């Protein structure tokens, strides 16, 4: 027999062991439950204790992007009501492009002359294609009523905001390997489609070109720019976001009172209510880990 078992049998009741081999353990039923039962269970191992202030500061980047989208919609409405003409729109485009470039240039050290040239080449190609395609965009949805276009554009924007990747930018800085997630790709596409729909309601080709350029610049590159600012200095990011919020709120106030109230309450909800909520629901967290979990590999698999 097993020497271990033989030794144990001299004592009246051998100790129960947590083993599966050797048949039924003498003196114990198979449903014996030791005090070591569930000893290996760990509860809430990966729960992070969150600080209210930190969560609030982190949520600023969400409201920042909300304001950016609100500003885009503001520009759209102004263009549709002809408050802004096509020349000033083009001026806005150029100034945005230049300021965006400058911010990238200052916040990222890795930009070289050749990379800059590469950027300029790409963007000029992009602008040319957009200009050539502008007539197509203008007549794209002529047979569809304006109401449906507004409805679709609005829901696409909501989808865009819902799926947007607020932690980093979908359009990557050069040299980043990681591929964006599917949801953030859908988000970017939704915003582009919304811009196309919007642009198709405009009276002239130049209008369409200017507004498309504006929307695409903002939707594709604003996340990258804000991400770079945030990485460069968190303080600068906060100042930038706050000024953006004040600017947006004042513009919206001039446009419509009710929209102002809606935007303001949305910002309060995102920045104050949600962080408080998140911290409150932490106590309901119930996470179980133990020896039955699938082991995690401690290295990256490169397929």
């Amino acid at each position, binding site marked *: *027999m*097993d020497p*271990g078992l033989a030794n144990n049998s001299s004592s009246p009741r051998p100790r129960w062991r*947590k*083993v*599966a*081999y*050797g*048949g*039924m353990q003498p003196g114990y*039923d*198979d*449903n014996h*439950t030791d005090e070591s*039962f*569930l000893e*290996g*269970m760990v509860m809430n191992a990966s729960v992070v204790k969150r600080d209210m202030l930190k969560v609030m500061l982190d949520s600023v980047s969400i409201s920042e992007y909300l304001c950016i989208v609100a500003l885009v919609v503001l520009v759209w409405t102004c263009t549709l009501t002809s408050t802004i003409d096509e020349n000033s729109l083009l001026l806005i485009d150029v100034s945005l492009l230049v300021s965006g470039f400058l911010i990238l240039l200052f916040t990222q050290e890795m930009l070289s002359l050749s990379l800059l040239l590469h950027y300029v080449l790409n963007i000029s190609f992009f602008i040319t294609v957009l200009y050539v395609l502008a007539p197509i965009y203008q007549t794209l949805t002529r047979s569809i009523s304006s109401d449906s276009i507004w409805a679709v554009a609005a829901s696409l924007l909501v989808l865009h905001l819902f799926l947007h990747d607020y932690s980093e930018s979908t359009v990557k800085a050069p040299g980043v390997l990681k591929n964006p997630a599917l949801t953030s790709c859908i988000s970017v596409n939704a915003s582009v489609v919304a811009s196309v729909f919007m642009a198709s309601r405009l009276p002239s080709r130049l209008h369409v070109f200017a507004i498309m350029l504006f929307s695409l610049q903002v939707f594709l590159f604003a996340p990258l720019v804000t991400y770079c600012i945030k990485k460069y200095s968190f303080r600068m990011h906060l100042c930038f976001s706050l000024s953006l919020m004040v600017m947006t709120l004042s513009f919206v106030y001039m446009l419509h009172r009710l929209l102002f109230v809606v935007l303001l309450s949305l910002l309060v909800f995102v920045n104050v209510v949600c962080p408080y909520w998140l911290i409150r629901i932490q106590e309901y967290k119930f*996470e*179980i*880990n*133990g*020896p*039955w*979990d*699938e*082991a995690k*590999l*401690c*290295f990256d*698999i490169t*397929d």
Partner: protein
Amino acid sequence: MMMGDPQKHRILMVSDFFYPNFGGVENHIYYLSQCLLKLGHKVVVATHSYGNRSGVRYMTGGLKVYYVPWRPFVMQNTLPTFYGLLPIIRIILIRERITVVHGHQAFSTFCHEALMHARTMGYKVVFTDHSLYGFSDVGSIHMNKVLQFTLADVSQAICVSHTSKENTVLRSGLPPEKVFVVPNAVDTSIFKPAVNRPSGPEIVIVVISRLVYRKGVDLLVEVIPEVCRLHPNVRFIIGGDGPKRVRLEEMREKHSLQDRVEMLGAVQHVQVRSVLISGHIFLNSSLTEAFCIAILEAASCGLLTVSTRVGGVPEVLPDEMIVLAEPDPGDMVHAIQKAISILPKIDPQVMHNRMRELYNWHDVAKRTEIVYDRALKCSNQNLLERLSRYLFCGAWAGKLFCLVMIVGFLLWQLLELWQPEDDIEEVSDFSLPHNCDEDMLEENPVK
């Protein structure tokens, strides 16, 4: 054989997984049934049809198998229809005069449905859980709810290891004293060590598993080149197939180990022994494992096992027969080096003899028999008492479960009216002459 046990059970084993499909659960059901038959019980197996194998078949020892004509739709699982199986399960239960229904495997829909109907009809129900589940991903959360539904009302449950018991208790909310631990076993008469062990300076490490993520193939990809670099006399034999095979082949090309890593592809179960006995060390790199029969088979063939310390693996073998390592390439290489250093002290025949003492299907059957006895002693409950148990399963789920059970009960009553129990013919029992397949299962050598 008849030990004077007064109670002879009539058991129905239900699971989606049975021969001709092959795996741990199938093996378990087959060997357990054979040994229960030897103990004098009546055993019937119900599973879904496999290809054109449908209807009633008899297997070795008079084991009757119902292949219910019910198509599997994914991974050998039947489509969950809730009530589709009720008529045929009812007829099988009545015809065979079943007393205990024993379901296997948590992700078998056939098993869950059959157990549900058996409970509706007032039968005693035992469930065996063969796998481990986490609590974090969506699939596990869904599975755990389904398991909670089935287990809310079982008479007794069986797990294959203590870790699996902890897991099942947490997932289903069963009281721990209702959950028994009855491990798997291995047929040591099939897995015998080689008469002439491969000698010489060369050390062969064998890996036999499906080549999938859960079996830790990515660990192997890291470990094999390192071991080959450290020990020029080590050779690997890898049996099995799967989506991760490409990764292994890439690794072999990259480190030019074609002459030292042999890939066999899928290995038939009958050939497993011949592959095992060509090696000295068995390597298991699973990331999760409730029990791991492969380790038993290897140890029974006299191989020293190196395994990851996951799930129920540490409980399976005594410390001197296995070298455990954390699921991390560095630690595994270390464990393999340790195994190589203690290899000269290992005598395969001694290890095989030890395994014959440690694991035996007859022992498993006897322990399962005790569980059946306990299940039959459980009090009968009416529908209302049982519904209250389902109601505790969750705010929404509880009510849903109750609804499912009530509809099942009504359908059963309807069937009783449409085809009364007395109209169903009962099958007469027959017993095989006892000596016809005595060699099929090895008798316990330590009487």
